[in-house]
């Protein structure tokens, strides 16, 4: 019994830490996005709240928390309230299987603790994909429950878009699975240690560079970001599926979007860019004899990789116009899908010819 409660405590601590980090990252992202966009567009971004506007996310959060939460008269109240939670929860729980650092197991009162991953399940990536699909329900339910045509169109667009690109994500990672021989993100990451030439995006015999490109593009589409932000295309559908949302419910959709961005960035880092592995063999701290702190360096590398990805999201937003819906679907089904499929064939043949 004590073991159970101990496990509970450890898990809760980990969950609290992960959720805290994710929420903090989302807050940083909202500010960073506005700042980065501002600099790219010859302006300063938020400057009013706190020095250089760094307290802006807190102000935004407080405002949304205390704001009147309007439920439109014709809306289905239960669904309308359920939708934001349904959108946010999958985005958060995906982090359960992400390895943020090396698996330094240690014993704590008789139970084994892996500090940098909440649970190393052997179907890790499948679990993330499965829950990512549930996020689409939140969006389509929100669109439908609002009883507004703009929301409905946004929700429909979103559903069709997310499932189309979900397929491409699923296909793009098959190459990595062949190379790694596992669905567990922990094992996939560990298989890429020993320098950047072991990262799957470059690794011989079958560099997953095309799969990586397909994954990145599909990930942008799955998170509804520019240039694929059609479900919430401001100039067309006003705010798309969350047109009718305000206050905390709106904030949940917002958190869901940004948490999803973080999640796909983490998955990309783990699957293609070596996760927490440094681009050189081992870690510097190990070489200078501070091996017990090597995990800090690993986590730093993971953070850098994830943030580079997030920067890419901002960069795309500042650069690209928006696709039209038919172009988006055409691109997903007729360009991305064949590339991803071809990658599987090429990878499997290469692996057969040059077995490990």
């Amino acid at each position, binding site marked *: 019994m004590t073991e159970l409660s101990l496990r509970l405590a450890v898990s809760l601590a980990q969950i609290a830490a992960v959720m805290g980090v994710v929420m903090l990252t989302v807050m940083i992202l909202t500010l960073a996005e506005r700042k980065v966009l501002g600099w790219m567009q010859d302006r300063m971004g938020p400057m009013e709240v706190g020095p250089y506007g760094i307290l802006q996310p807190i102000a935004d959060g407080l405002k949304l928390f205390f704001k009147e939460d309007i439920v439109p008269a014709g809306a289905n109240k239960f669904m309308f309230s359920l939708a934001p939670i349904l959108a946010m929860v999958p985005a958060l*729980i995906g982090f359960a299987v992400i390895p943020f650092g090396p698996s330094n197991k240690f014993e704590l009162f008789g139970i084994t603790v892996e500090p940098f991953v909440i649970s190393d399940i052997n179907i890790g990536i499948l679990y993330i994909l499965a829950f990512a699909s549930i996020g689409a329900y939140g969006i389509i339910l929100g669109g439908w429950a609002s009883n507004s045509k703009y929301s409905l169109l946004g929700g*429909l667009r979103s559903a069709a878009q997310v499932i189309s690109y979900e397929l491409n994500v699923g*296909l793009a990672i098959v190459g990595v699975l062949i190379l790694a021989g596992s669905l567990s993100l922990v094992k996939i990451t560990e298989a890429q240690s020993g320098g950047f030439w072991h990262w799957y995006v470059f690794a011989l015999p079958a560099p997953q560079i095309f799969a990586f490109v397909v994954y990145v593009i599909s990930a942008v589409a799955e998170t509804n970001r520019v240039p694929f932000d059609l479900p919430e295309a401001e100039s067309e559908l006003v705010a798309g599926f969350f047109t009718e949302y305000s206050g905390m419910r709106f904030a949940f959709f917002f958190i869901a979007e940004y948490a999803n961005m973080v999640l796909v960035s983490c998955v990309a880092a783990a699957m293609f860019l070596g996760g927490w592995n440094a681009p050189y063999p081992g870690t510097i701290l190990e070489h200078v004899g501070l091996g017990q702190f090597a995990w800090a360096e690993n986590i730093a590398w993971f953070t850098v990789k994830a943030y580079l990805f997030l920067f890419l999201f901002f960069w795309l937003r500042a650069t690209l116009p928006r696709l039209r819906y038919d172009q988006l679907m*055409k691109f997903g089904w007729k360009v991305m899908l064949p590339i991803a499929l071809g990658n599987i064939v090429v990878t499997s043949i290469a*692996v057969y010819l040059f077995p490990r």
Partner: protein
Amino acid sequence: MSGIELLLEYLTKYFPILLFIFVALAFGVVTLLISYLVQPKYPEPEKLSAYECGSEPFSDARMPFPVRYYIFAMLFVIFDIEVIFLYPWAVVFNDINKVSIIGLVEMLVFIALFLVAYVYAWRKGALEWD
């Protein structure tokens, strides 16, 4: 491994995930609840009306929508299931003892079948938005 041990193994692995789902749900519900308690409430008809650019909506928004969306949904279901079949194969294919020409050919045949369906859908115009 006996059944009990497997079950225990599963429990220790999946228990944190269940816990996480519960915590995330609780976080959502509790935050909404607290926010609901502290926020002002001034409902009025204009504010509660559905947004349609300031004009009165022509009709209820809950109406049949075009069949195109369903077609894509069905295509997704079909293709996604085929993708799921690829996963177990991908995981074991590169296993040092199992790399075999049979595994490769079988999967190439499977992908060829996938392609047949894909080309059929393409030729039938199911992948066109219009």
